[in-house]
């Protein structure tokens, strides 16, 4: 099979799985998950084949795998869609297919496959456990998710969206995949739709990202109009970029290229949860944990960064290598600000998943900032390493929650929140595999030197910012990196170290192999993936392994980016923020037992800088008022229908006037009744002469005859 055909086929298994499960197999849980996991495995396999063929091609950047066909007739031409695997596409495909496959597998265990049906479980709510009798003793065990099959169907659709996005050679199908993922995140965040918090979170996620999407749609329309195509490789020719770069728009003095890039970037701000559209992501934690990993690591949020990576040539049109263009400055600012801003919130969160959610926002900020300063390879590198360790952390946290839920079922105390880190502690002994893998993930997130992948990618971003003199970005990111290490260690300390703080934590249990195996696989990559991108000039380690990543991914761009000269300042900074953050995190939290002892529970941080409240006041409430009161009640029912009803009333009034003052008196009474009355009066008055006596009639006839005769005689003859 040719590689191109294979690329077309990659997204198909998950979508087929979706339809199969929805239409046919949803009654059978075993069959449904077999189909789902099998589809993920097939896509993974195909992706691996494509990936290894891709890295075997020399100058893949100039000669990528591509194939397209006519999709929409538009006037005299066609809008084409197709697939494309260039170096960056191949690199992304690699991590996407692995994480997706792992998440599918993990879901089997997470949703308690093989466990009995719950006692009171209903569709739309998380399972509450089932009572079983063993050896004459009753005890409660986890119960299987009632909507188990549906979950795999949704995951399949989600995976389809992501694969479509990655293999697209054009913005339109990228947008299709993008929006399908948007729908899936809505469906999956609201998976337990019976919980009001989940259904609100689902809507919030959809609507917030949609704000970005409509701008993105405008950007796509603009780009399509300006270039007549949406295919990446046709847009990113020197000629087209030059035209776009020199065409000026009336908005903020931006060139067409800059404006389009920014419009598309707003889509990313929504999708990758950057400030100010970050508010949906923490709430998205309402979904089942594999969803969080899917959304926050492997797929949706990466998709946002991936879109900017794809649009990088557009963003950097006119970029001379030193001075950032307006569009780039905006991107760099949003990224760096978000990185720091989200990190400050993460410090004060107590929910194990929420900490990770904010850390995701923060890390995505790193990537966006990197793209904003033109550090293309570093951004891609961090995107990939982050995907591995963040998927690991989310799945790990899911494993922790699962273990805690086990404890909750054991004690029967449902008051204990299995996600609150203050209810945990000492889990390292209860859940060793989860602990060690989580530790690896956490250290990678913190950028623990040399060993972990996160160090290499984060260091590269910092080095790039420093090396090109973007000091503001460098300092902001360094501070954010310090806080990252700090809150990560806080999380690890509170969760795994020390002694169990609740009975539930004492009875926590390691999770089944379907959950721990993915953790091990992801932990492997969270360590080793960093080694493919070690800078050549790095002391001691540089040059041991060739910097394959830089060569390969850098080849995507028309101008191959220069390798950065080594500088000791960013390296020392990296070392200091990572190790320092970890150390202080451990120091500050090793003895903390209750939230009250936590010095960082500052209201403004805890309440996320009050963005939810502000948006509610500024946008949500006015929108309700505008639609319910202004448009529906006042404008439609009041003014427009009011005018219509007035019109009706005026007509009625005119009709009444005509009836009462003309029809009734003049026509009816005067002409109508009047004529009748007159006739009646004449008739009545003539009655006396109708006597019935023939003699009188003759007499009358004679008189008339004489009178008429006399009159005629007089008139005619005289």
């Amino acid at each position: 099979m040719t590689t191109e055909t294979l690329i077309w086929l990659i997204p198909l298994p998950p979508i087929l799985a979706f339809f199969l499960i929805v239409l046919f197999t949803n009654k059978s849980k075993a069959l449904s998950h077999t189909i789902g996991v099998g589809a993920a495995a097939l896509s993974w396999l195909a992706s691996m084949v494509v990936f290894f063929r891709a890295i075997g091609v020399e100058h893949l950047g100039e000669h990528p795998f591509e194939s397209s066909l006519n999709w929409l007739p538009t006037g005299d031409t066609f809008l084409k869609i197709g697939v494309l695997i260039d170096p960056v596409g191949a690199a992304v495909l690699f991590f996407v297919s692995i994480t997706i496959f792992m998440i599918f597998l993990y879901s089997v265990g997470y949703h308690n496959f093989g466990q009995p049906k719950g006692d009171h479980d209903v569709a739309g709510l998380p399972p509450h456990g089932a009572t079983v009798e063993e050896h004459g003793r009753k005890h409660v065990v986890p119960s299987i998710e009632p909507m188990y099959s549906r979950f795999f169907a949704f995951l399949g659709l989600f995976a389809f969206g992501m694969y479509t996005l990655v293999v697209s050679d054009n913005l339109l199908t990228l947008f299709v995949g993008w929006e399908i993922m948007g729908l899936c995140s809505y469906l999956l965040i609201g998976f337990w739709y019976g919980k009001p918090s989940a259904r609100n979170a689902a809507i919030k996620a959809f609507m917030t990202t949609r704000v970005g999407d409509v701008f993105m749609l405008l950007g796509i329309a603009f780009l399509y109009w300006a270039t007549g195509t949406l295919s990446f490789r046709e847009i990113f020719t020197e000629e087209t970029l030059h035209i776009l770069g020199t065409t000026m728009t009336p908005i903020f003095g931006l060139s067409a290229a800059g404006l389009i890039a920014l419009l598309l970037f707003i889509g990313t701000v929504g999708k990758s949860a950057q400030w100010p559209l970050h508010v949906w992501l923490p709430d998205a934690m309402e979904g089942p944990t594999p969803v969080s990993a899917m959304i926050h690591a492997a797929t949706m949020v990466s998709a946002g960064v991936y879109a900017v990576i794809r649009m990088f040539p557009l963003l950097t049109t006119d970029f001379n290598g030193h001075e950032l263009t307006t569009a780039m400055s905006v991107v760099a600012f949003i990224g760096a600000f978000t990185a720091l801003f989200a990190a400050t919130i993460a410090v004060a969160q107590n929910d194990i998943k929420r900490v990770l959610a904010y850390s995701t926002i923060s890390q995505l900020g790193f990537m966006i900032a990197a793209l904003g300063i033109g550090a293309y390879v570093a951004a891609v590198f961090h995107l990939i390493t982050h995907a591995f360790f963040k998927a690991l952390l989310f799945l790990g946290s899911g494993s922790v929650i699962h273990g805690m839920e086990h404890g909750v079922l054991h004690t029967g105390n449902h008051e204990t929140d299995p996600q609150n880190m203050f209810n945990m502690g000492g889990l390292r002994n209860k859940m060793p595999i989860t602990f060690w893998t989580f530790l690896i993930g956490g250290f990678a997130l913190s950028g623990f030197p040399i060993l972990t992948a996160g160090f290499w990618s984060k260091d590269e971003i910092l080095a790039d910012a420093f090396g090109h003199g973007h000091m503001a970005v460098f300092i902001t990111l360094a501070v954010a990196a310090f806080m990252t290490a700090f809150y990560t260690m806080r999380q690890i300390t509170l969760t795994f170290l020390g002694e169990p703080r609740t009975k539930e934590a004492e009875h926590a249990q390691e999770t089944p192999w379907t959950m721990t195996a993915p953790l091990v696989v992801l932990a492997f990559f969270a360590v080793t993936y960093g080694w493919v991108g070690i800078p050549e000039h790095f002391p001691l380690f540089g040059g041991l392994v060739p910097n394959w990543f830089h060569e390969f991914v850098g080849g995507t761009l028309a101008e191959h980016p220069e390798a950065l000269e080594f500088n000791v300042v960013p390296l020392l900074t990296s070392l200091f923020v990572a190790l320092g953050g970890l150390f202080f995190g451990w120091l500050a939290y090793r003895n903390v037992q209750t939230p009250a002892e936590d010095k960082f529970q500052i209201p403004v941080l805890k309440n996320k800088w009050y963005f939810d409240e502000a948006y509610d006041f500024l946008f949500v409430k006015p929108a309700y008022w505008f639609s319910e009161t202004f448009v529906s009640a006042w404008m439609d029912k009041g003014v427009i229908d009011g005018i219509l009803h007035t019109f009706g009333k005026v007509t009625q009034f005119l009709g009444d006037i005509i009836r009462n003052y003309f029809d009734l008196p003049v026509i009816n009474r005067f002409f109508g009744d009047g004529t009748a009355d007159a006739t009646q009066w004449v008739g009545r008055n003539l009655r006396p002469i109708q006597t019935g006596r023939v003699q009188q009639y003759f007499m009358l006839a004679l008189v008339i005859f004489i009178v008429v005769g006399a009159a005629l005689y007089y008139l005619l003859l005289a």
Partner: protein
Amino acid sequence: MNFIASHYLTLILFFPALAAVIMLFLPRDENKLLRWFAFGASLVPFVLSLMVWVNFNADQPGFQFEESYVWYEAIGSSLHLGVDGLSLTMVLLTTLLTPLAILASFSITDRVKPYMMLFLFLETGMLGVFMALDLLIFFVFWEVGLVPMYFLINQWGSANRDYASLKFMIYTMGGSLGLLLAIQMLGVLFGTFDLVSLYRQWNSLTADRVLLGMSVHTVKTIAFWAFVIAFAVKVPLWPFHTWLPDAHTEAPTAGSMLLAGVLLKLGAYGFLRLILPLYPVEAKMFAGALAFLAVAAIVFGAFAAYGQTDFKRLVAYSSVNHMGFVVLGIAAAGLASGTTDAAIALNGAILQMFNHGLSAAGMFFLVGVIYERTHTRNLEEFGGLFPLVPVYGGILIFTSMASLGLPGLNGFVSEFLVVRGAFPILTVYTAISMLGLLFTGAYILKGIKKVLHGPVNEHWAHGEHKLTEISTREILVMAPLMALILWIGIWPAWILNVINKAVVALF
């Protein structure tokens, strides 16, 4: 076969009416017979129009399958029928939706015979508008369609039906008064109502001619607005839209399906068939005004839908929102006719008509399904129905997403084309319309949230109120719609090809 092949359009057009007359002689109480007869009869035009679709040559400009019969010789009007890519799409939509609407009405038990007859008459009325190539015939069918719908709302509607049916009737008729006058004027001026020759003669009038004591410019401007108002009421454009929520909400389910699915398209079709070709200059001159009204419909329609507590009203307002995009595309095409952008905008507008026909009919049907079981449309009384009716829920989410314009489903393709086409021509208006697109999401999600999501609804879960799952017949009504929604979303070329070629040939 020869007879059929040479009389496709007349057969499609009059078969439903003929069947309705035959129904007159069927026994009154045999509901089953009446239903199946009507359903069968409505399938015939569908099959015939499929045959027309297959035999239609998209590459040939102009009208095909033309038929012409003398109708009113004294004033030069004839029964001239013909289709091009634009009208054929609409004919297909009509003949597809009518059988589905009739199938959807199998649950009607009150006076089945007249009910079904009215639907068949309605089909003839709607088809006539799409096929007519004679202005007077166009107008006749335009008004003929009103009457069955009036009675359907008035007799089989819900509580506030008198008000709604009267509003519908008077509003539409009031709107078409000017249309009638303008048509008469054209007929008087040229001695013919034949559209094909009017296209030519009317546009070749030189500016210095004096018509009826006024300059050509004045006459055309007046006639233009007379046409526009008639069609704007039907589409409906803001602020002529308030009849729509009332009529849609009070009409019986199948009535709403056709009302939203087809009747609204009559207005948009009028813009495309008559206004753009007959008034290119005026369309360009007043494109800004049209675009303003269209964007107002998009934005206010979305907000109004969001503000509803009645499920059916919410869906009704969504029509205002969606049809706004059709007119936005038309306005853009009017401003820049002949350009590629205009062609793309028109492609989008026409496809949007078809797409909205599918999704709106589906949405109204789904509202009807639940209304029939619960006898309420109040969103506050629903919520948490998903666990009770999972299949229904899945179908509702699917159809809602089509209505929302999710990429991969049909609505996105057409909205994208309209936005793409209109963006360079009417940049600011297109940008503002994005606000409407955003709130399309809001009201759709509100609908799903208020109906399906939430804790299990105990009220509808047990006993006499127990909500029953969607039936096989009801799924059969939805299945063709959903299949088409998906098909057009994934592979729109089969239909867009026909539309595109018509657009290129026409404008």
